[in-house]
């Protein structure tokens, strides 16, 4: 995974609460078995009109937001389905950080798996950023994971966490900064995993009693 230190980029405001992953990537696209090509499908039914042309009323299509790298949204962003495709779509579209008062749990975890940085700010600060980003299309923000701060050139500055739990915040921040992935770390625990397996009662392993 690509390490994340600091990103400066255009902020796109999605002024909605409880945005669900069915809206981020509609279910009909989940038949695809590829890992790439998801960026084009991001927010598909909001982004495109029935005739396939871009919906001029959707913020991602508005002038000034074309190269957005940071998304700011209302609370509980990413709720609903566990589909990791939602994070793939955001990441492949170019979004590196999501600023919100809270994220839904599974989506939150999926962000860590894909090097997308969750930026938790208090509700008022999020509202402030949404207002700024709406008023001034193209306004830029810096997300600095080393200092755990987000700021802009006009004096906005705020510390942030990537998780509410301080331990998890520190651990996940470390992984994101260094591009560490869980699988390699877990496989280092091979001895402990084997020892655990030795202790498991045999009846925990399902055997077909009717076959």
């Amino acid at each position, binding site marked *: 995974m690509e390490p994340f230190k600091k990103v400066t980029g255009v902020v796109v405001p999605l*002024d*909605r*609460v*409880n945005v*669900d992953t*069915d*809206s981020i990537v*509609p*279910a*009909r696209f*989940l*038949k*695809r*078995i*590829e*890992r790439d090509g998801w960026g084009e499908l991001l927010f598909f*039914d909001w982004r495109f009109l*029935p005739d396939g042309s871009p919906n001029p009323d959707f913020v991602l299509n508005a002038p000034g937001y074309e190269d957005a790298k940071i998304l700011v949204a209302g609370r*509980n962003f990413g*709720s*609903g*389905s*566990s*589909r*990791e*495709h939602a*994070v793939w779509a955001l990441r492949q579209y170019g979004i590196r950080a999501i600023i919100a008062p*809270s994220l*839904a*749990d*599974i989506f939150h*975890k*999926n962000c860590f*798996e*894909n090097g997308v940085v969750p930026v938790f700010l208090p509700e008022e600060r999020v509202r402030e950023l949404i207002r700024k980003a709406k008023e001034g299309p193209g306004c830029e923000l810096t997300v600095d994971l080393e200092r755990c701060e987000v700021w802009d050139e006009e004096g906005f500055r705020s510390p942030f966490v990537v998780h509410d*739990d301080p*331990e*998890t915040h520190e*651990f996940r921040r470390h992984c994101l900064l260094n591009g560490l*992935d*869980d*699988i390699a*770390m*877990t*496989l280092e*625990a091979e001895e*402990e*995993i084997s020892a*655990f*397996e030795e202790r*498991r*009662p*045999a*009846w*925990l*392993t*399902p055997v*077909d*009693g009717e*076959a």
Partner: protein
Amino acid sequence: MRLVEGATVKPKTLFEKIWDAHVVREEEGKPALLYVDLHLVHEVTSAQAFEGLRLIGRGVRRPDLTIATMDHNVPTTDRGLPIRDEISRKQIEALRANAEEFGIRLYGMESNRQGIVHVIGPELGYTRPGTVIVCGDSHTSTQGAFGVFAMPIGTTQVEHVLASQCLVQARLKTMEIRVDGQLSPGVTAKDMILGIIGRIGVDGAVGHVIEYTGEAIRALSMEGRMTVCNMSIEAGARVGMIAPDDTTFEYLRCRPFAPKDADWDAAVEVWRALPTDPGAAFDRTVVFDAAELEPYVTWGTNPGMVVPVTGSVPDPASFPSTAERAAVERALEYMALEPGTPIQEIRPDRVFIGSCTNARIEDLRSAAEIVRGRKVNENVRAMVVPGSTQVKLQAEQEGLDKTFVEAGFEWREAGCSMCLGMNPDILQPGERCASSSNRNFEGRQGKGGRTHLVSPQMAAAAAIAGHFVDIRDWQV
């Protein structure tokens, strides 16, 4: 505190007991590594995970603790014919090839044990109380009904579990949802969970494991308990669980993959020690009175947007914050509903009885009760999709299929079907559906489709009447 062999032992919750028994490694400042007893796999969230294993040359650590089925993408008609949608067919084929390559037991479309992943685990007896189960699907919590830590995971974690049989997880906070008293007649497990979500909100339990307790929960059948646990994610919790008891053991006894003979006895002894100890502490407790719960209908675009069937569509102006008012206005526009419209005047075009929430045998029996000897309204197209092929066969043995077909319902093969718009069963833009499923998000059942979540009985009654009705007034 209670005394055990002379030592004081801190009382533990069900969740803590399962957690402690599954820690493989736990270090200061890091999430724990938990052992996974069972990993369920379906076609939609697994292809990229298997691909990941192949790319780096890893195998599946425990194929014997991994099972796969096909549910989201499968057509519910014409099982004999090849799947017409080429992309769907490729995904189904990918799972078949992956299961073969990695030696995983697969219940494919031709198997009479195929079905929705959360339905087949319990009904085949794979589910064991006190275990850790994962699946790349948000409704994995269904199996929490058996006193299981059943956790949904993303595709990267699917790959992680395939490779290591372990889950990286920080300890979660606990939330007790206690439902005291008894449900009134006509009020179901589905109404109970809709009522809970309506009150605590769609993010009310984020970061928590829910344990459902109380008299009304204990009185539920396993089917009802699964319905409640299933929708934990709709309240923001990844895991929802209910302590196992005799109802649980009776359900599991004699299922094909359940422990047998002496193993069964040993297992039940372990399972009886699982319930939360008296005096154990939860981080939060929320209490409901079952007698106050009613049949519910959702009116908006998330499951928390819900009112009793006796109510009406709310006015955006009655919500406290601007963000909420905006969300409600947007939802009403999408749903094409006017504030103040009585729920019972809303007329669905389609009725869907199905999904991992409400398509088990008991759900189909109770819906059949409602429609027996009646006809589906001429303005409604209605379908019943059993949660698994086993449920379908059982229902046919009991003649439920005939009851539905005679009433004018379509009777289908098992799968996720119209719960989500990724197979041929979808709503057309603008169509309104009374659905026994779990999500009413924009476009969930097909682009532009409008979903009202209800119990299977309420869905069945709406199909007959042509509009929502209070099931408590229904004369069977």
